[in-house]
């Protein structure tokens, strides 16, 4: 959820409201991006957002976009620090015990966890947060063309992997 003033020059962000509005989403975003400890990462993200409050222009859209960037950067940073354990437990391959939608979710999430980190970021930001490609680029701090190619390559890789798996 996004809480934002309708006025062009909104007041400085209300952190309490911001926290309540976005806490759940931030934890889930961190988890889907592969953070080993999404709740810890969310705490860190909100602390960093708070520390940067003086640099924010107060418009809610920018504040939320900045929060997304913090999360993406923090996931990357932690992944670099701990290359061997960058998959969160819930993204690790799980036994395929269920059929139908649940089985398909497991298959997609499992293949997602195997994508290169940038492609995974692009896919999650585009298809879970439903961000525009421009906003995906902003959150990833890359050019628009790069965001497009990461989404495209990620989708193609997922489609390939899922097709292979279904045929095997």
């Amino acid at each position: 959820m996004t809480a934002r003033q309708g006025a062009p020059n909104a007041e400085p962000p209300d952190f309490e409201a911001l926290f309540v509005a976005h806490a759940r989403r931030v934890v889930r975003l961190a988890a889907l991006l592969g953070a080993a400890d999404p709740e810890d990462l969310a705490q860190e993200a909100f602390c960093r957002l708070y520390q940067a409050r003086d640099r924010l222009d107060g418009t809610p859209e920018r504040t939320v976009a900045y929060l997304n960037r913090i999360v993406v950067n923090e996931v990357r940073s932690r992944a670099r620090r701990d290359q061997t354990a960058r998959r969160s437990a819930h993204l690790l391959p799980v036994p395929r015990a269920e059929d139908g939608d649940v089985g398909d979710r497991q298959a997609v999430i499992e293949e997602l966890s195997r994508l290169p980190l940038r492609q995974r970021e692009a896919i999650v930001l585009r298809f879970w947060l439903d961000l525009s490609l421009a906003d995906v680029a902003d959150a990833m701090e890359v050019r628009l063309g790069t965001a497009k190619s990461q989404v495209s390559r990620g989708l193609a890789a997922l489609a390939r992997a899922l097709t292979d798996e279904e045929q095997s």
Partner: protein
Amino acid sequence: MNIEDRVARALASEAERIDVDVEELRARTGDRLTAARVAEGAPVRPARGPLLLAVAASVALAAAAAVFLGTGDRLGPATDPDPGDVESTFSCPVQRDIDVTSGAQDEFLPRLGRGGPAAVADEYHAPRWDFVEDGSRATLRLGNDDGSLGSITTYRAAGDGWTPVSAIACGSSDTPGVPTRDELRLGTHGYPPYKSSMSPRFYDGASVFLDDRAVYDYSGLVIRHRSMYVAPCGARLCWDTGRPTSMVTARLRADVPTIAQDVSSLFFEPDDLVGRANPFGMWAVWDPDGTVRALRAGLGGGVVRQSQTFTDPSWRGAVLYVVVAPRAGTRWVEAVTAAGKPVRRAPEDVTGYEPDNGG
């Protein structure tokens, strides 16, 4: 199903499986902010109570830590009223006289019976109380958890008991709301909101928090706050307010996003408005497809209140615009289309009885 839809569906489903305890996260984040503050060498002021918390909010980091820590959440009846330690003077900004002799009101009747003052405190869920006898007169003070005074009732001796003579309690007949620093802003106001009771299983998108604020009980005590949430339900928007004691549901239409809909009666619980007025007007538009850009209310002197905007990724682009303004001073409410055209029409009250569906 194409790969895009398949991925979106899997991600949405996976995200829903991740349970988040927001209150716990808030507490831990507060700890971390406080630790950062200590590391910086700045003093951290403890938050003492609701009003102090609001004042302390101006001290940026310490106050944020206090809010995240949830130290302002002192509401809820104590298990056993605690005698003593009630302040002797009011710290609340407004008090009102209560007629305890004529029988014209029955919301607050602190009659001393066999149970004595402890029973009165228990009846009104007062965390603290103080009773002083002075010859033929007596005084009962009911206090909040932080010791602030909620009400004073005086008695005179009558036979083997006491008869109430006068009572003064915090609050006014103009509103049940506890004054806050920014009362026209939707959001939190000193207390961690209750969790939403709108289960995602029964709605067509996540519930989104709108507002939480405390109310004065009729006894003048601050022992309750209510949280307000919204979630899409079919082609409409459902509202859930009054947690934890009651729920009021309205249905905001999506087919007329340029006509403001009056939801003022959801601002307080009906029971809290008995003998009181609602000074707030709350208007909303529920826009499923980007028809509207904003909602605003015009007050006297050319003052214009702008809407706050609420949405969620699961709402698939739909947006709720809500503007709160003093009801008496509001001259017009208008929606602004995506093209920038203002549409000013009489708001439609959508919180009443709906004969078609019994709502």
